[in-house]
């Protein structure tokens, strides 16, 4: 019996280890191999799955239209479970597959961990949504499609202070409260710069309330405090899942401030079965408008709905743009799929700073050599269940 167990376990180890031995990634295939990394399982899977779906639509479109300079794209998205270590594993497994360009990762902490390896390989990497400033720090091969967190926090404080927001009581907002997720990189990143810039702006912060990932369903205390402090506006640097609960709970205690958020709020109108009346008057700085009349957006949204039965959020749109940015950069540089990873990296990281893209998430997007994107944030307000530009 003991023997059996021993033999069995040793065999298992041997098989597992052997199966990882060599799968030499030589690129004599006749396609561009683009990898993707993001959370496809676990609590953050919403974002990763959206990115996979959005990118796949772009890849299929490009392939159907004849590929990039006549070369088809092969896209392979791997799960990182929103964990840095798993993301590095996913990166290595994609390298074994022969990845030449990386579209990812979706979230910031894994992106920073993967960045060390991709910059050592000089592999061109573009992330649709990892928005921490650290993602593009200390490397020259990583670019972002999204605004970074400091810019969003700064932009939000500027907007409220300079352009001004009319409160629901009919007067200009001067009292602001913040509810943020102190256990989340995105949320605390926005919060940090918002607070810093708010000191220079003509409004007061009357309440700052945090919550954590392990208590992200009940917001009664945070809302009660904001209400007691007389906040006319609540800044919500967080994702739409929590925001949908906050809106419902505020309505339940008859509290009616203006809600103001970053791009994380995008998607709130598409939460299945959500009472969109609750989101009436919510202001958000978002680059992507699913209801826009723009033909490209309409085509993308209807294709996404056809395939996945739901309206895409900004993660999906960012991923769609990322694939097109890769295409444009390859075409601009004249790079070919037979180049080595490092040659491609050298060519693309220069090319991407020379192109300008009209995408779903921004018009005339350009990139700085640091990796940051240059595009105009759009402030939107939700009226009658759709975004209206402010």
């Amino acid at each position: 019996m003991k023997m059996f167990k021993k033999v069995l376990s040793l065999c298992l180890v041997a098989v597992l280890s052997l199966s990882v031995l060599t799968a030499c990634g030589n690129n004599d295939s006749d396609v561009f191999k683009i990898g993707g990394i993001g959370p496809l399982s676990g609590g953050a899977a919403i974002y990763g799955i959206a990115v996979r779906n959005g990118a796949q639509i772009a890849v299929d479109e490009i392939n159907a239209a004849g590929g990039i300079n006549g070369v088809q794209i092969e896209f392979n998205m791997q799960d990182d479970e929103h964990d840095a270590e798993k993301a590095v594993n996913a990166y290595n497994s994609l390298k074994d597959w022969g990845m030449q360009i990386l579209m990812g990762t979706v979230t910031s902490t894994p992106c920073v961990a993967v960045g060390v390896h991709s910059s050592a390989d000089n592999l061109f990497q573009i992330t649709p949504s990892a928005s921490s400033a650290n993602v593009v720090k200390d490397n020259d091969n990583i670019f972002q499609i999204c605004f970074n967190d400091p810019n969003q926090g700064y932009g939000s404080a500027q907007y409220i202070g300079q352009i001004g927001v009319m409160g629901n009581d009919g007067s200009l907002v001067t009292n602001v409260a913040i509810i943020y997720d102190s256990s989340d990189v995105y949320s605390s990143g926005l919060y940090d710069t918002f607070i810093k810039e708010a000191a220079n702006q003509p409004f007061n912060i009357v309440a700052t309330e945090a919550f954590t990932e392990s208590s992200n369903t009940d917001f009664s205390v945070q809302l009660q405090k904001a209400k007691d402090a007389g906040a006319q506006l609540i800044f919500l640097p967080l994702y739409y899942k929590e925001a949908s609960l906050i809106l419902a709970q505020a309505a339940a205690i008859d509290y009616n401030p203006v809600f103001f958020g970053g791009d994380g709020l995008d998607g709130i109108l598409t939460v299945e079965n959500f009472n969109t009346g609750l989101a009436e008057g919510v202001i958000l700085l978002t680059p992507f408008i699913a209801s826009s009349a723009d033909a490209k957006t309409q085509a993308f949204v209807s294709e996404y709905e056809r395939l996945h039965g739901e309206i895409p959020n900004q993660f999906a749109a960012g991923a769609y743009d990322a694939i097109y940015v890769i295409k444009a950069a390859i075409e601009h540089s004249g790079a070919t799929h037979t180049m080595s990873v490092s040659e491609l990296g050298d060519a693309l990281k220069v090319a991407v700073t020379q192109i300008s893209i009209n995408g779903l998430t921004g018009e005339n997007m350009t990139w700085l050599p640091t990796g940051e994107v240059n595009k105009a944030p759009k402030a939107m307000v939700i009226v009658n269940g759709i975004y209206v530009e402010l």
Partner: protein
Amino acid sequence: MDKIPKIWRDNLITYGMVIAIYAVMQILISFGLVSRLMQGLLVPLCIYVILAISLNLTVGILGELSLGHAGFMCLGAFAGAFFSKITVEAITFSPLRFFLAIVIGAVVAGFFGFLIGMPVLRFRGDYLAIVTLAFGEIIKNVINALFVGLDDRGFHFSLSDRASLGLYEDGEVIINGAQGIIGTPQDSNFTVGIVLVLLTLFIVQNLIRSRDGRAIMSIRDNLIASESIGIHVTKYKLMAFSISAALAGVAGVLYSHNLNNVVASPRAFGYNMSIMILVFVVLGGIGNIRGSMIAAVVLTLLPEMMRGLDRYRMLIYAIVLIVMMLFNWSPQILAWREQHSIKDLIGRVRGRSRV
């Protein structure tokens, strides 16, 4: 060979296995035969093996259930990374810096193991499980809310946000709350990992064989009886628990120096991670050091090998986990395996051939 006591021989086999795997891997790597994924997994494998061995000391040898092991790993990871981050310019000889980081990680985790162990080890069974889970979550949550900055005036601490540190413009935030520590030097490598695995094995196996170890196991087997023959129960419980915590701290240092950023996320240091380590121990056979090492390797490799299954990956992983548990532990299946074991089969075949 017969002169060596069985337990020694058993230990030697374990050391031999680790060294053999190391040698084989190194040879394969030098011939370029190992995939990049596998090379990247070598350090994580060492980390999980150390965690499995160290938790086995608490669960298998001391016989107490702990669901907070990831908390000690978290302490070690942050203590080590913090040290490396502030001394990265002062100590340029990276092996020395990493050695000191490991020592610091182990001491900090061991110290907290001792502190927490004092009140906690009075509990037994499921109550101990919940209390250790609580402490693990406390550690993770506090580190997640911890801000430490450094400027000309020295260190600044805060438990609320970055702004309240009151740093000068040129100050540097070292631990940035939920954003953790970014920019730890990547000092971990397979050789160091294997050395630490061997060290962990050496400590745990020697402890088991020593007088102290026998006292610890007597507590597991019968607390009241061992108390009645004058064994200082609290002392030995604390000893096993703190050593186990310190070793988890070592694994943590290895973890935080394998990635360039460390974040006290639930995925990396939450109760789910503690449970995962417990799965290694239970699947490998509680108290069976070598078994838990193998289980750690198998269960770490498994989801990576199944990447091809795409969206069914984690679902199948869950099924495999359940089936392995049933296969290894169910009394009926064990009985069935007893009847159909390989030895038996070989015996039967031999018997038949004689006829």
